[in-house]
Structure formats: structure tokens, C-alpha cells
């Protein structure tokens, strides 16, 4: 025991000491405010993003419809073959009925343009479904075509010079007549999720893209989740520590940072070029995304395994569990929340990934939802890309709405992650 030193030099009441204390408190406050400012900035940016998406996209959440009565006259449809009926003529007749004042073919043609082309398809499927309706009248809600939809939503400036608008004064007059007849409505645009893509904005929907993304993510998950966990377990628990495993490890870390477009090129060359797999197919898209997701899952798995306290391993080994029993029954369950979090992050990234899918042709124009893994299809991000590139006014709002749908899917996936994490979470 040496003699205890006294604090002879320190005078806790001196002005210098007080200044030091003030300085320290100021430092604490500065750090706290810097953190709050950073957080505030992040939240603000997020809010701006969401507000602008909503501001642009909410118009696409509703679609102008008109309730129109059509006569499925037997003159135009052969009951034996409803598929080949002259539905154009039926629509023309109905439009003529709507606007009795029209008497020349040119005016009638532009009046027909007020209804979406989808009207003919809708009539065809009615006739196909129930041929007994042929010869009778049906009243259905048909979407108005895009320019009139814009007009109904008040997005067309009626006071601007006529030559600067797509809709001439005569067209606007037709619409006003229709509206005065009280047949125009503005219901929720379910077509946005129940229709596949179309050249006509009023008919275009995300169903094909949603299924395409679903199939691609399914393939991605099925390939990368078990492979990633198995690879992570091997590297973390079984692999000898030597040069070879070091090199593998470095490469996996690098792989996680490779730009996604490179994976697209690789997939184009290998999957489509060598193996001759179909272009634009969710199967190939999923395989490409799996290449990108795999390193993320491996890294997450290893980090999660490393975080399991060694005492649990020792406990299991100590009662005579073998290596695989230790890993499978004790370590892996405890690592599962971390692995799942990493997996969901990887899948969420994959869901939003555009570049590799463009390269393998998932930006094709396809008007039907894929019914299998090898059907041509788009995916949500590539659909957004296509729509953002389309000139029609109606696609502007639909692009933002599609982004909102994509965000909704991301939020749903994160909710699943949170749920799974809380279910697996155990204290130790």
C-alpha cells in the first residue's frame, strides 16, 4: 500500500473548473443537436418523397367511368362464334345512341374515342361468358379514354387556346353532354392492380408486374435463403481457417458490393446465352436476383452466428452434443432473427432492383400476367421504368401510383420481418 495521493492540484470550485464543466455540457448538447438535426433531415426527405409521390399518384387511384348501354345485337355477333363479333360496330351504335345529334362519320369516330378501347374487350368477354345475352341490352361501366379522364379530373385547362390541347372544344362539349346526363362516375381504379399492362393508360395495370415480381422473388428466396444459410454456417462453423477460406470470404464481401447491372450482364451471358433459358422470364429474373441476394444472406448469417454467445455452444458441447446438433438445435435458432432480418433486407433490395432485370428483358411490353415461372413478364421496378418512359399524360400519375404500390410491398415485407423476429426472439 502506497500513500494515497491527494487532489491538491484540483480546485473544483475555481472559475477554470466551472468553465470546463460548461464546455463539456455544451459539447454534449452539440452532439445531441447534431444527431437530432440529422434525423430531422432524414425524416424530412422521406416526407417530401412520400408527399410528392402521393401528390402525383393519387389521381391514378381513381378512374373516370361512364355507364353506357350497349345492344349486343345478333346482327354483329354470331352466337356460334362470339369471339369474332364486330364489337367496334356495337360500340359505335351505342355512342350514336348517346349523342343523337351526330350525323357524319368523322364526328362519330372522334365521339367513339371518348370511351376506352377496353369497352370492346369488356363486351367480348360478356358475350363469351354468357352467349344467351346476345340480342339483348347490357349496361356496363366502361372507362373513359385517357384525355377525357384527365378532363374529368380537372387536369385540362379549358381556357387555354384550343390548338394547345389534345381535346378540342367539340370534344369537351361531348364530354359535357355525357356528364349532364349523369352517367359519369369516378370510382376507385381497381384496374391498377387487376389489369396487366396496356398501351392505353386508362386500362394499364400492375397485375403482370406484381406477379412477375412475386415469382422472381419466390425464385430468389428459394435459391438464396437455404444456400446462403448453408454457406454461412459452413464458413462460420466448419471451415478451417486458411488461405483458401480467407479468399472465399473476401470474395463474398466483394460480391455484395458489385453493381447490380453486372449481375444482369452475367445472367444474360450465362443463363440466357449458354443455358438457353427464356428471356423476360421471372425464373431467370429470380436467379439473377438470387446471385445478388446470396452474399447479403451469407454475411447476415455469419454475423448472426458470431453474435450467439459462446457459452451456449460450450453448454451444448459439454453435454455431448455433436457439431451439427450444436449448430442446428442451439446456435441457429438463436441466430434466426438476425438471419431473417438480413434476408428481408436482401429481398427488399431485390424487389426494387431494376438494372439486371432490364438486361434480361423483363421490360418487355406484355399485356397478360404470367401464369408460370417461364412466361414473359415484367416486374414492379421495370414496369415503373416503362411507364415513366411513356408519353401519355395518364402514365405520369400511374408511375407514381406504381411506386406507391412498390413501397406498400416493401412495407409489408418489413412488417413480416418484424413479426418473424419477435416470434423467434429469445433471451439468453
Amino acid at each position, binding site marked *: 500500500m502506497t500513500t494515497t495521493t491527494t487532489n491538491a492540484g484540483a480546485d473544483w470550485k475555481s472559475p477554470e473548473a466551472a468553465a470546463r464543466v460548461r464546455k463539456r455540457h455544451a459539447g454534449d448538447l452539440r452532439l445531441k443537436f447534431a444527431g437530432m438535426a440529422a434525423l430531422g433531415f432524414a425524416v424530412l426527405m422521406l416526407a417530401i418523397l412520400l408527399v410528392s409521390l402521393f401528390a402525383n399518384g393519387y389521381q391514378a387511384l381513381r378512374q373516370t367511368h361512364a355507364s353506357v348501354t350497349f345492344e349486343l345485337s345478333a346482327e354483329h355477333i354470331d352466337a356460334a362464334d362470339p369471339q369474332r363479333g364486330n364489337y367496334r360496330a356495337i360500340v359505335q351504335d351505342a355512342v350514336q345512341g348517346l349523342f343523337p345529334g351526330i350525323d357524319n362519320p368523322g364526328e362519330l369516330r372522334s365521339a367513339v374515342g371518348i370511351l376506352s378501347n377496353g369497352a370492346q374487350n369488356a363486351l367480348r368477354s360478356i358475350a363469351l361468358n354468357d352467349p344467351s345475352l346476345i340480342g339483348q341490352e347490357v349496361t356496363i361501366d366502361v372507362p373513359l379514354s385517357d384525355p377525357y379522364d384527365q378532363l374529368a379530373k380537372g387536369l385540362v385547362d379549358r381556357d387555354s387556346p384550343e390548338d394547345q390541347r389534345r381535346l378540342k372544344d367539340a370534344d369537351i362539349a361531348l364530354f359535357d353532354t355525357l356528364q349532364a346526363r349523369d352517367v359519369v362516375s369516378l370510382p376507385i381504379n381497381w384496374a391498377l392492380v387487376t389489369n396487366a399492362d396496356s398501351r392505353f393508360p386508362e386500362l394499364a395495370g400492375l397485375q403482370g408486374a406484381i406477379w412477375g415480381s412475386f415469382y422472381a422473388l419466390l425464385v430468389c428466396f428459394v435459391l438464396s435463403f437455404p444456400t446462403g444459410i448453408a454457406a454461412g454456417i459452413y464458413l462460420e462453423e466448419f471451415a478451417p481457417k486458411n488461405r483458401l477460406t480467407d479468399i472465399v470470404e473476401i470474395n463474398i464481401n466483394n460480391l455484395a458490393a458489385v453493381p447490380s447491372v453486372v449481375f444482369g450482364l452475367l445472367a444474360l451471358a450465362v443463363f440466357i446465352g449458354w443455358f438457353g433459358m427464356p428471356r423476360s422470364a421471372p425464373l431467370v429474373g429470380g436467379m439473377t436476383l438470387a446471385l445478388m441476394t446470396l452474399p447479403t444472406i451469407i454475411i447476415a448469417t455469419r454475423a448472426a452466428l458470431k453474435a450467439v454467445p459462446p*457459452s451456449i455452444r*460450450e*453448454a*451444448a458441447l459439454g*453435454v*455431448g*452434443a455433436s457439431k451439427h446438433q450444436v449448430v442446428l438445435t442451439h446456435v441457429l435458432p438463436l441466430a434466426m432473427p438476425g438471419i431473417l432480418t438480413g434476408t428481408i433486407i436482401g429481398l427488399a433490395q431485390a424487389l426494387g432492383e431494376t438494372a439486371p432485370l432490364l438486361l434480361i428483358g423483363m421490360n418487355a411490353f406484355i399485356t397478360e400476367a404470367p401464369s408460370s415461372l417461364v412466361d414473359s413478364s415484367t416486374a414492379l421496378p421495370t414496369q415503373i421504368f416503362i411507364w415513366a418512359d411513356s408519353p401519355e399524360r395518364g402514365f405520369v400519375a400511374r408511375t407514381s401510383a406504381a411506386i406507391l404500390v412498390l413501397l406498400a410491398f416493401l412495407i409489408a415485407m418489413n412488417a413480416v420481418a418484424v413479426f418473424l423476429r419477435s416470434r423467434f426472439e429469445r*433471451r*439468453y
Partner: protein
Amino acid sequence: MQDAITNALAIKVACDKVNVHYGDTHAIKDVSIDIQDKTVTAFIGPSGCGKSTFLRCINRMNDTIDICKVTGRIELEGDDIYDAGIDPVQLRARVGMVFQKPNPFPKSIYDNVAYGPRIHGIAAGKAELDEIVESALRKAALWNEVKDRLQSPGTGLSGGQQQRLCIARAIATAPEVLLMDEPCSALDPIATAQVEDLIHELRENYSVVIVTHSMQQAARVSQKTAFFHLGFMPEYDDTEKIFSNPSDKRTQDYITGRFG
């Protein structure tokens, strides 16, 4: 016959010229020791002298450390445990271990104790497993405290209860030798006393080896004491003899508190 048993207890673990290397570190140097059956043997010595390392040689826990190399001969009832024909997984069922920090599995109390018997196929059915669990918990003096909540998590118990649960888990596979590495260092005095009582009782059936940094504890619970110093084992004798009249200078210095 009676005399033969009390005077000359059988040798359970015979260690001959054991050396352990961690890479370049020579952690155990030429240690030879015969550990008796139905005896509590204490390992004492300053920290870092190799007590844990030597203890972990006896159930081959050192196998799990890549850089650790064990040479020499360790026999359990005459069988070389480092022989190629010996499976370390089976060995660890015969030589149980209790660790410094209580480490129950994040599972129910029942599953904690039942885990060993399950993986080694010791119980024939549910009824027998129940019996094994109950008897292990009784031997670990924990049964009365937990019998009504066998399905609640083992991690929810107090520190002392957790350590007794770990002991129950270790004895559920009916090991022949029980290794304990500073089992009381994370416990309060009351829990320590309970565990020490338990060690007394375990001695009737098992050969117990306990590492402790408390010399009072060694004196209280053990019949034999081995003193470790810088990887060597300078002295191994009856506990009474070591604490009253050690023959090695280093032992004497340690016991009288001159270093350690």
C-alpha cells in the same frame, strides 16, 4: 473389503505427462496426476496457470479450439480418451462439465435437463425421461423450487438456481466424472453454500474435479488438491496436507498469500 474401498479408492482418471500448446503458448507442462473415484479434487493456483486448460483436456473440450494441441496420455478407467476409437461426443456424456458462468439453454427447465439423455438415447420413453429429469433435479437440490414450473424457461431462474440447473443438466447423463470450472465465481454466498453442499453429496457417486480460486472453498469441499503454477503442477496431495504443511515452496507462497 470395506477397508480396501475407503483406504485405496480406485483411480478414475490417470493423466501421464500431459502437455498442451495453444499455438506457441505452452500452457500445460508435463502434468501427471491420478484422479480418484468418489473424491472431490480441487485445482488451485494463480489465474492463467492452466487450471481450466487442464480440466478441459479431461473431456476433450479443447478439441473445439483449433490451435490447441494436447499430447501425453489421459486414461478414463484405463481407456486412452485421445485414442482414435474414442468419440469425444460420447466421452462428454461420461465426463460432464459445469462452467464458470451459468449457461442454461434458452429452453424450458425440463428440456434443459432432458437434452443430454435425449441426444444420447438414455431414456426409453417419456416416463423414464421424466424420472431422469426429476432425479437429476433432486440431486442438484433444485427440484422443490422448480417442480411446479418445469415448462418455464431455464433462463428465468436466479443465478444460483441457473447454476444448479446446469449441474442437473450435467448429471442427467449419469457421468462418471464431473468437471466444474469455478462454478461459484458468479454466485452470491448463499448460492455458493448450496452448490458446495451439493458437491459434498455428489461425491458419493461421482469423481468431482473443481477448479476454484478460493482456497477456503478448496479446503471446505475437497479431499485432494492439486496446485498449478505457470503450467506446471508442483504439488498434488491430500487437501489437509496441502493447506497445513505443503512440501513445495511455491505452494506455500501461494497459500500464505505471497502471490496470486
